[in-house]
């Protein structure tokens, strides 16, 4: 599903964010990428969403070599993966429904299909009753659930979650992680980027540890030990 072959990312002039990363994530896997701040976790996500280009190496997502992806192809790539961010990135002047619908609108999906699918996805994340509210009228947990609904609505094969619980309390954190696990059970590959030790240790899935841009461990049912 995702191949990173000897990936390096060097920011000008010589700040090394990632160095010689080799990683293979299989379909339907749940992988936690862990590490301290500045370890290169978010850079890895940015390379997978073509926000950044790798300085060296090859990147393959869903069988598509995106190493030298053109600007024209970037939107096509992004429509095939779902991304959840720590700062949610919801459109503040759009309702929950409109935010989720936007991910389908950019793909050119018809209005009738949007009206059918969006409420279903909002029901899955428990926001069906709040779909006419604006993001500022929701709690932190609800906002993140709306962001997950948006990331899922176009049924991506891969869901990238970049510190999705970073701004949430422990109760909401548990809800979000449970939701991600549920999504994974339905067959979506989930890549969770976090530095939350408790979260990683609770879910008992594959753990990839980054330190100073290098991959230092990769364990099935691993733990995050500081």
């Amino acid at each position, binding site marked *: 599903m995702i191949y990173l072959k000897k990936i390096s990312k060097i920011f000008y002039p010589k700040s090394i964010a990632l160095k010689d990363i080799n990683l293979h994530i299989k379909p339907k896997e749940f992988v936690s990428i862990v590490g301290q701040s500045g370890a290169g976790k978010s850079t890895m996500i940015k390379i997978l*969403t073509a*926000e950044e280009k790798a300085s060296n190496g090859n990147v393959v997502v869903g069988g598509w070599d995106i190493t030298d992806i053109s600007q024209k192809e970037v*939107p*096509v*790539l*992004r*429509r095939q993966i779902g*991304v959840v*961010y720590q700062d949610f*990135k*919801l*459109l*503040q*002047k*759009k309702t929950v429904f409109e935010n989720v619908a*936007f*991910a389908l*609108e*950019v*793909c*050119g999906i*018809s*209005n009738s299909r949007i009206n059918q699918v969006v409420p279903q996805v909002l029901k899955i994340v428990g926001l069906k009753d709040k779909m006419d509210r604006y993001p500022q009228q929701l709690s932190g947990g609800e906002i993140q659930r709306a962001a997950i609904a*948006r990331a899922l609505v176009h049924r991506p094969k891969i869901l990238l979650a970049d510190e999705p619980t970073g701004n949430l309390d422990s109760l909401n954190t548990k809800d979000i992680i449970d939701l991600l696990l549920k999504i994974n059970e339905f067959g979506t590959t989930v890549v969770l980027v976090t530095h939350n030790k408790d979260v990683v240790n609770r879910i008992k899935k594959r753990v990839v540890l980054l330190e100073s841009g290098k991959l230092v461990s990769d364990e099935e049912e691993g733990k995050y030990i500081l």
Partner: protein
Amino acid sequence: MLSSGSRVLKFAFQDFFRNFWLSFVTLTILVLALFSINLLIIFNLVAQASIGAIEDKVNVSVYFKPEITQDQVLAVSKNLQGLNEVKDVTYISSEQALENFKTRHQDNPEILQSIDELGKNPLGASLIVTAKVTDQYTKIMQYLAEPHYDNLIESKNFDDHRLVISRISNLMSKVNTGVVAVALVFVIIALLIIFNAIRMAIYTHKEEIMAMKLLGATNWFVQAPFLLEGIIFAILSVLLTIIIVYPLVGVIQPYVSSLLETNFNLVTYFTNNFFTIFGLELLGAILINLISSYWAVSKYVRV
């Protein structure tokens, strides 16, 4: 493509109304800039009309000797009318001149009595000559100074007008230069203000634009609503400017008429040149909105 177009339209209107205060401020700035330009147009028109009114009042009177016959005077009149510089020549007979003189001094019985005692009309006929342009009076006077007119003409009052004519000429050229310079500065300021207002409005959408791009929106899908919103801003601002300008010229008009004593009408001018004035303003507003929107959004879509 059709649903994409309708979505772009929907997003443009949604953004306009959901960011009401931002839209209101942007629109206000646009209206103020356009209003300033119209104010300048009004000022220019009034200045030109004032100069025109003063110019119309300037003329040269040529007084003929009493013994000169009407035919001789009319022959001179014909010659003057043949000059390129002359706009109009009005003939005043010696009888009319006497009549005018008596009317002018009707409250002074001594003068009237002296005229009666003379027993004959002491006044000759005269011609009132108006030039097409104030600069051309000198040429007309040079023509009248030719030797063969010496026996016919008693006096010319050119010297009385020389100063005022020269002042008007100077004033006209200065006003024209000034108006062009002020107009240029105004237009540049208006363009910069509009450009900046649109850029600031789009800056507040920076995060949203980036989020849209991360969701897989193409540059066109992100940019188009902003460009369309720019066109909506332009149309609304010109409409509002029209709504403000018309009552304003309506209010100013009576003062201009009484001041200039001419039939120059600002409202008529704006109505007759409606499509030129507001059409150009609309075109300019759309262009500057599109350029600034495109430029500002382009900065944030590079995600």
